[in-house]
């Protein structure tokens, strides 16, 4: 019964929408690629019919819109045809992007938790800094990411760090906001209990406030890790970046390699979803260990 209900409630609608998207994709590919395909067929000089046109539109080398099977084939060829350390393997580029994203996330977590602790413990910081932290997020920082890369490059910092700094700037905000809530989430009763143990400020912070804030931290982490990947990709856009999913997007756009753009895009989505899944697993493991629900 439960399986049947799940089928009806969840799987069926999702499958229907996914099927619709796929059908629309193929139709769109046919419609967008048809003019090019017609030209290509006319150049061969032979007579051609509708079936030829469809086959041609779905198998262009540089289509306006590649079909899903072309993207999957390209992705598969790249993932299995080369060693993971080869620049022709998308795993290599995903690894470069993931490194920057995770380094930035780690820096963002440190900065975010430190700021949140400061805001929770120091009232002056709460009223002077918190409004600016919130205002900082209305600035389209992602848009100036390439400039940060160039400026840090002028200062002698290249490679991973500039990208990680961008990711850090994007990541710290959800973590600060979540942890301000989380560090204040300790039950007053528990705080009183800590008092009866004669626990000092540091012990209360480490043994009560931090564990009590973990659910909030993980909720923020899930948001942060997704935007961290976006930050890393945009940080790879400035010309000169050789590796990374952003560099693949840019070179694909320069040379009109649409299939390459799409497979980089799919790879980026997979990376992002995988990282969120890792965070979710860590959340389950840590919170179960801590005895929280």
């Amino acid at each position, binding site marked *: 019964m439960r399986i049947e209900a799940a089928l009806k*409630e*969840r799987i*069926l*609608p*999702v*499958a*229907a*929408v*996914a099927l619709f*998207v796929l059908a629309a994709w193929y139709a769109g590919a046919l419609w*967008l690629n048809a003019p090019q395909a017609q030209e290509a067929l006319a150049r061969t000089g032979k007579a051609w019919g509708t079936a030829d046109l469809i086959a041609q539109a779905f198998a262009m080398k540089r289509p*306006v*819109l590649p079909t899903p099977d072309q993207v999957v084939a390209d992705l598969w060829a790249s993932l299995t045809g080369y060693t993971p350390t080869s620049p022709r393997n998308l795993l290599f580029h995903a690894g470069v992007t993931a490194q920057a994203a995770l380094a930035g996330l780690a820096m963002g977590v440190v900065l975010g938790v430190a700021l949140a602790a400061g805001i929770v*413990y120091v*009232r*002056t910081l*709460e*009223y*002077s*800094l*918190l*409004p*600016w932290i919130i205002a900082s*997020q*209305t*600035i*389209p920082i*992602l*848009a*100036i990411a*390439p*400039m940060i890369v*160039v*400026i840090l490059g*002028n*200062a002698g910092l290249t490679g991973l760090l500039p990208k990680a700094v961008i990711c850090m700037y994007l990541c710290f905000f959800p973590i600060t906001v979540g942890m301000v809530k989380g560090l204040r989430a300790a039950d007053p009763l528990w705080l009183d209990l800590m008092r009866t143990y004669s626990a000092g*400020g540091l012990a209360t912070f480490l043994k009560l406030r931090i564990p009590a804030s973990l659910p909030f931290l993980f909720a923020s982490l899930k948001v942060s890790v*997704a935007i961290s*990947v*976006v930050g890393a*990709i*945009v940080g790879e*856009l*400035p010309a000169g970046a050789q590796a990374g*999913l952003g560099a693949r*997007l*840019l070179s*694909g*756009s320069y040379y*009109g390699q*649409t299939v390459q*753009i*799409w497979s*980089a*895009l799919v790879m*980026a*989505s997979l990376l*992002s*979803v995988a990282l*969120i899944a890792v965070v979710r697993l860590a959340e389950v493991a840590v919170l179960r260990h801590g005895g929280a629900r």
Partner: protein
Amino acid sequence: MSDPYRTSLRTSADWGLVTLALLAVAALTQPVGARDGAALAWTGDIMAPMFLMGTALAVVAGRTAPSKVKGAWVELGGAALAWLLPFYLLGEGVDLSRGWGLWLYLTAATLMLWRVLGILSAVPGLSRRVVVPGLFGLGLLLGWEVLVRGFAIPSILLPAPGAIVASLAANAPVLWDDFRQTVLTSVLRGYLLGCGAGFAVAILADRVPFLARGLLPLGNLASAVPVIGIAPIMVMWFGFDWQSKAAVVVVMTFFPMLVNTLAGLHTAERIQLDLMRSYAAGYWTTLWKLRLPNALPFLFNGLKINSTLALIGAIVAEFFGTPIVGMGFRISTEVARMNLDIVWATIVVAAVTGSVFYGGLALLERATTAWHPSMRRR
């Protein structure tokens, strides 16, 4: 973290003030800067001791003020005076990079500002909500300006705020053209289209629950996926002009609006819906008079998230190709030509645009949802 159980005698020793005084004394022993290669002592310039005395007077006056808050305002005057000294010295052509006395003095002034902020943020009301963050921001800007100019940091790394404002004024016509192209054309059209489409599909999905159940996982997936990556594809499809940027904005804003609208439409409570039923209100009347007003906080949440996303989408899409105008184009080309002051001016325009966009929506939200429980206790 006051301790209600501890009783202690409040002595009048103000350790913060003692630290300040010690810093000031230490500052006196060091030069304020260098002029023509020779170190310049505090006594080597007529005006410099005046600033020091002014600050000291302000501290004394602050201690004798009738209330702590009034004293804080007087101390603030002293701190402000201290921060004026480096500008005066820069005007006199003094090299500040080796003036350790000056920097110690400024450290003391910063600590003083911190004390003032601490006192002001203990007072609820307007001063805490507006004056404290305002002073903090102003302090940051002043510190930035003084450090950059004092240590002569090359403008390629970081221009001073004053230089950015000057460039803002000098390049106003160019920046206005960029603003018109990026914000008024691409962002606004894409934003209206994307939010409108998200809203319309959400209403449709609300009528057809099957569609909602299929679309929601897709919407959640879209929030996890770097949607910005479609920018090169859109530029390829729709060309270099505003259409491609608007298309990116539409795709980026569609799902947040859809998800938020759907969530908002489900906030109406059973009992409220039953009341509408007892009035014999149909679907559309219920939607218009009950469910949409109830969903307003969620709608505004989506609109606010999208305001930032839309700006980002349009500017990043411009990195992939534009006509020779637009904020993204300006940033990418001027960075390559190392004209960083124009880039910073563009960033200021983008930041102000983003804040005004967001702030305007927040004001509109307050005006239209003042009755909503989420707005209470503000």
